[in-house]
């Protein structure tokens, strides 16, 4: 990890292929994915499925299929390229699309990271507020503030998280590693307790699913009829990490893999974090509705109702350990554009942006849409990497074109990225399509456009 004005103590091979001596066995990846995908976001996303009207059968089978597709995408799309080139995504983009382009892409990534971290600050504050009787409410307006006391709590939490991130996140990474198995156990315990609270303690009651349908009916009575279909669940589960697999961000991780079989490691994160934890978190809301006729998805209050102080600690740690590295990485992205500013300064800037975002509870309440939009914006660049790796040489074009011609912006890559992303964002925000639906069409369009424009614009260069 690099610290300000100090040489890096560990070679992270950011601008060279990872050599064989640094390759890692599969165990490292299984551990990392187990921790990374059992996080604060799960406390928000699970209840949102119920609030959106998903049936329990669709949730169980839709998440199963969607997570399986996500694992296959990591294994067969990301891992072969990662171990074939053993370079970070950012270095590959720099070689293909140019240095300035990569900085721009990285800043977009950093801004989106800030919003994700903001949601986690909201989650942590919701939990800390419970014992202090500070209420988390979601206002109607997207940029509406909660109660003044809650906003003040968000600022306090955000400042602490930003300062810790600015100091380097090694300590937080260690806490996250230690907490991961415990968090998985706590998520499971929350789900089991919720079932008891809903009197679903027999096979008949569990299979009948009345505990769930009653909760859905209650939400729809209050909020109007909504539907979240099987295929929406499948596509969401598949593409909520679209930036990591279709977008190839996890090339930076799997470049260390000794064998391609390490590409199965995300399955532990998907089936514990994005399956078990989401369902358990959704059960928390169903139980709260049954016990107190309250359908507000306040992660802190939900966990408090199931496990008391343990639930509060879990939400705080889950939110904190997610927000901290996210802010840290956003700070690195911003520093890439302004290298004269220190990493600490830019991490604090990222923390400030995240804190402002966290002050608007509605942003975290729209996490289902946000992660789809996140994948739509960042995912398509993975198609450029895919085309560069598999197709360019086969059709007589140059791979790593930007580095070969010495350009800082490869226009073919820029247009190929911005065009489908712009159309995707228009469809999401102006036409209201489900955000995750835009990821794959944008990815395919980006690849085709990049190939076509490269054919039209590439000039002969020496090998």
């Amino acid at each position, binding site marked *: 990890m690099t610290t300000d004005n100090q040489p890096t103590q560990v070679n992270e091979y950011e601008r060279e292929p990872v050599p064989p001596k640094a390759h*890692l066995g599969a165990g490292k990846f299984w551990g990392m994915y187990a921790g990374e995908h059992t996080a604060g976001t799960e406390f928000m996303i699970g209840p949102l499925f119920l609030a959106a009207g998903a049936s329990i059968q669709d949730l169980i089978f839709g998440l199963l299929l969607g997570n399986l597709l996500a694992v296959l995408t990591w294994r067969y799309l990301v891992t072969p390229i990662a171990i074939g080139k053993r370079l970070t995504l950012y270095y590959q983009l720099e070689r293909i699309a140019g240095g300035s382009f990569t900085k721009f892409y990285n800043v977009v990534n950093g801004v989106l990271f800030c919003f994700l971290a903001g949601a986690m600050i909201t989650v942590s504050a919701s939990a800390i507020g419970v014992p202090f009787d500070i209420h988390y409410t979601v206002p109607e307006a997207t940029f509406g503030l909660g109660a003044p006391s809650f906003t003040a709590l968000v600022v306090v939490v955000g400042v602490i998280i930003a300062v810790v991130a600015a100091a380097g996140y090694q300590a937080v990474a260690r806490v996250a*590693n230690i907490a991961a198995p415990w968090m998985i156990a*706590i998520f499971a315990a*929350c789900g089991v*307790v919720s079932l008891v609270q809903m009197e679903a*303690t027999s096979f008949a009651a569990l299979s009948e699913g009345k505990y769930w349908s009653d909760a859905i009916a209650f939400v729809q009575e209050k909020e109007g009829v909504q539907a979240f279909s099987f295929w929406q669940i499948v596509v969401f589960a598949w593409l909520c990490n679209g930036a990591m697999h279709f977008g190839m961000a996890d090339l930076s991780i799997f470049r260390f893999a000794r064998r391609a079989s390490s590409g199965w490691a995300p399955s532990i994160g998907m089936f514990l974090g994005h399956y078990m934890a989401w369902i358990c978190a959704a059960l928390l809301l169903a139980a709260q509705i049954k016990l107190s006729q309250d359908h507000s998805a306040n992660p802190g209050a939900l966990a408090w109702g199931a*496990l008391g102080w343990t639930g509060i600690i879990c939400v705080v740690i889950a939110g904190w350990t997610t927000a901290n590295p996210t802010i840290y990485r956003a700070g690195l992205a911003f520093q890439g554009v302004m290298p004269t500013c220190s990493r600490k300064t830019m991490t604090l800037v990222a923390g400030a942006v995240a804190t402002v975002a966290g002050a608007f509870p509605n942003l975290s309440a729209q996490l289902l849409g946000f992660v789809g939009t996140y994948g739509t914006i960042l995912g398509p660049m993975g198609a450029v990497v895919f085309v560069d790796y598999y197709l360019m040489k086969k059709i007589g074009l140059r791979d790593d074109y930007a580095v070969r011609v010495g350009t800082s912006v490869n226009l073919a890559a820029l247009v190929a990225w911005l065009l489908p992303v712009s159309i995707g964002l228009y469809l999401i925000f102006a036409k209201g399509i489900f955000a995750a639906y835009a990821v794959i069409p944008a990815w395919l369009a980006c690849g085709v456009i990049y190939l076509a424009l490269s054919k039209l614009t590439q000039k002969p260069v020496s090998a």
Partner: protein
Amino acid sequence: MKSLAKIISYLALAASLVPSLLYFTGTIDHDAVKVTALTGTIIWFISTPLWAGQCETADMSAN
């Protein structure tokens, strides 16, 4: 010492999860689940740092 800490950690982890299953079977009440889970949590965070590996040597996802 590390082996002992590891055993204590696993017991603490079990104390965080098993009470909910006992609650499911009607063996204990909800308050007992909360107290046991909190006790397990505290012990987990005391014992696990004694044996769990030090921080990863490299941030694999570094930009």
